């Protein structure tokens, strides 16, 4: 603890700085703590082990997608195709499960990785804006999903109890496997971003791709790979979802997931302009979104549209705070 007298003198700058770093670096974490404490205190059903477990399980699918999205956004891009790709993975996984577990796991992940790779190649090679290219992906892949499912009328389900179902439905230390897998994805993501040369290049490219090219970094390769990473993450998420549900999901599954994933990344402190961000922040961001949603349902018994309003307001507040503080730190 700092001596009170010393603290008083520098209180203002300290508090400004601590708020700045709180918001920009681990704002989501701080808010998450506050929200959870409020939840524990005011909503009895929120703090039960069952409820927390279920919330974590529900969050894990979008969490994995958001981890991939973090790479794309830090590199200065955006991936709007993840919602549709998720649906593709879900449907493909159920379709393929008749050929065995490995097909149900491998084919969707490979297909999503391929889709990400193609989008990345178009973005990097033809220098097209990622927004437009992945918007085309969003539309086209959703269309493909409806085509595969015969205009959404077929709901392929998983026969029997193959291995990949048990992966999704099993648990370890009473926590379901998808939650562990999501945490593992984040651990790997953190490692790649912070402990490999590729991760350094992702951050440099997002900061300024012209400068990165002048420094001799493989800018185009980085841009291609981040979209492939996003694709792989979406594929994993979709496979897990099918394993858990046993198939039968609708063709419109994963609708607007891209927006939730982007929101989680931004709330986690990653700048949409690229270059600055943290994958740990994203984990807190997505958790926060689900905790708030859960609290609204459990405690306040509001309908899902109100949840959306609250989430929207919350996102706006975070973005405003980010802008205010990044401007302040510039002028300092």
């Amino acid at each position: 603890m700092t001596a009170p007298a010393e603290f008083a003198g520098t209180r203002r700058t300290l508090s400004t700085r601590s708020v700045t770093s709180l918001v920009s670096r681990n704002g989501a974490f701080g808010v998450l703590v506050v929200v959870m404490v409020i939840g524990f205190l005011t909503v009895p059903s929120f703090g039960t082990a069952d409820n927390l477990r279920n919330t974590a399980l529900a969050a894990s699918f979008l969490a994995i997608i958001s981890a991939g999205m973090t790479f794309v956004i830090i590199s200065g891009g955006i991936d709007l195709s993840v919602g549709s790709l998720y649906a593709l993975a879900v449907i493909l996984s159920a379709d393929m499960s008749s050929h065995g577990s490995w097909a149900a796991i491998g084919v969707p992940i490979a297909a999503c990785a391929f889709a990400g790779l193609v989008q990345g190649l178009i973005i990097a090679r033809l220098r097209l804006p990622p927004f437009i290219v992945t918007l085309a992906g969003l539309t086209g892949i959703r269309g493909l999903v409806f085509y595969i499912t015969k205009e959404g009328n077929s709901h392929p389900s998983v026969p029997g109890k193959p291995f990949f179902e048990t992966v999704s439905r099993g648990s370890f230390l009473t926590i379901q496997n998808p939650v562990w897998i999501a945490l593992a994805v984040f651990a790997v993501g953190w490692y790649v971003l912070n402990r490999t040369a590729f991760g350094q290049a992702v951050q440099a490219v997002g900061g300024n791709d012209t400068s990165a090219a002048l420094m001799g970094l493989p800018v185009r390769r980085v841009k291609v790979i981040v979209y492939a990473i996003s694709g792989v993450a979406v594929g994993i998420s979709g496979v897990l979802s099918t394993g858990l549900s046993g198939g039968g999901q609708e063709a419109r599954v994963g609708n607007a997931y891209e927006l939730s994933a982007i929101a989680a990344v931004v709330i986690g402190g990653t700048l949409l302009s690229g270059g600055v961000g943290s994958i740990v922040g994203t984990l807190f961001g997505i958790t926060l979104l689900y905790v708030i949603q859960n609290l609204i349902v459990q405690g306040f018994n509001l309908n899902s549209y109100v949840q959306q309003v609250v989430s929207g307001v919350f996102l706006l507040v975070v973005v405003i705070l980010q802008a205010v503080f990044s401007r302040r730190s510039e002028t300092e």
Partner: protein
Amino acid sequence: MANGVSATPTLSVRQATKQFGGSLALCDVDLDLWPGEAHALVGENGAGKSTLIKLITGVHQPDGGEVLHHGEVVHFPTPRDAQLHGIQTIYQEVHLAPQLSIARNVFLGREPTRFGSLDLKRMNREAAALLGRYGIVADVRRPLGGLSLGVQQMIAVVRAVSTDASVVIMDEPTSSLEPREVDKLLEVVGLLKQQGVAVVYVSHKLEEVFRACDKITVLRDGRLVWTGAVTDTTRRQLISRMLGRDPGELGNGKITHLGRAPVERGEVPVLAAQHLTRRFVLDDISLLLHPGEVVGLAGLLGSGRSETAKAIFGALALDSGTVEFCGKRFPRSTPASRLHSGVAMLPEDRKVEGIIPELSIRDNIGLAALPMLSRRGFVSRRKQAEIVDTFITRLHIKATGPEQKVAELSGGNQQKVLLARMLCLSPKVLLLDEPTRGIDVGAKAEVQALIADLAAKGLGVVLISSELEEIVEGSDTVLVLRDGTALGTLFGDEIDESAIMTMIAGAAEHDTAELIA
């Protein structure tokens, strides 16, 4: 490698030529870089310095000529290829990754790894050692973004020299540095020379060039004007080579003021700028402009010419100083309020700041006039067409018609479109930054005549040009600038090239004398 003892240059450029669109950016330029030598590259804006560097560093490929590395012809399709040959560049605007630590930035793109994982311990240790060697005190684990621009620039230098660089190119490395940091950077240049590195030093700050460099190459309009040892030239000769006069001609003062009719300087100047000051950019610049007067701003690149005009136009925030128009302060300090009052500016780079190439001549001209032409937000196309057509005729804009895209016009005609855009606002003051750059001789004469004509009709004109001849011939008054300070004002018959160059060179000698003392 011992100092300068080598049979072949580390890097040579032979008859390099580069075209962009229709314009020749570089023409038949030779350059030899020897180990242990610092070679200065000087010239005004658009002289071809950047283009030359970009050919060496693999950003651009030459259209003609070749690059030789230790006597062998090399091709650098990308910057990475040049870097693999030991050619490192420090750009004026460094954007390393601000979020990453100093050490991570130093090793960005060539990180030491162990089993695929970054060897952070080694990175931190080696980065600290490197920083120590160049006398920089900083915690290498801190994010780069939190450091001052000067320190960031030094980190960029360390990054460049930490490889086995044989050639280090510095493009205006001191533009964001404090004097103390400049000293440090020049020390680094000295260290690099001792290590046998060939240094290319691009700068418009001549005292730095004279302090740190062994050889100088002067470029003008994409051509090699002069190359030689620092000891073989004087500041004055150098300035005249950059601005486009042969030193012999200069001494005789051949080009002098044409003796235009003297200006009637009334009681109230149309424009009065007082004590314009902005840290590192402008230092107490004052300027009076009367109706019908052309005030020329003379000085080298970086002297504050363009910045003075921008400050007057409200496009450059000032620390202090006032700008009065017809004896009154502007209500707000924005370009829009200036335009509204009747001050118009022709920007230096018409491609970046001026024209919208994909729009027609009519729309480009009409753009500025829109507020006057529109009623409740609607624009009368007929009225706009009338006004625009008048100007197309008046300025002799050569085009197939008013609907032709501006991108298809020649440089001279594009410039006239910009002038027309200003004139349809019926301004009282024109700020012209390099109005004749990059346009052919005939169009140049036309534009110059047009400026004289406008002044004769009572407009006040501030004229900026890196061609001294244009300033001398076209101005009634000349304000001479250097490093953001005013060196003096010349009126009427006092104006000639020799007087201006003596002023600039004199101040430069003076500065060096101070530095040595």
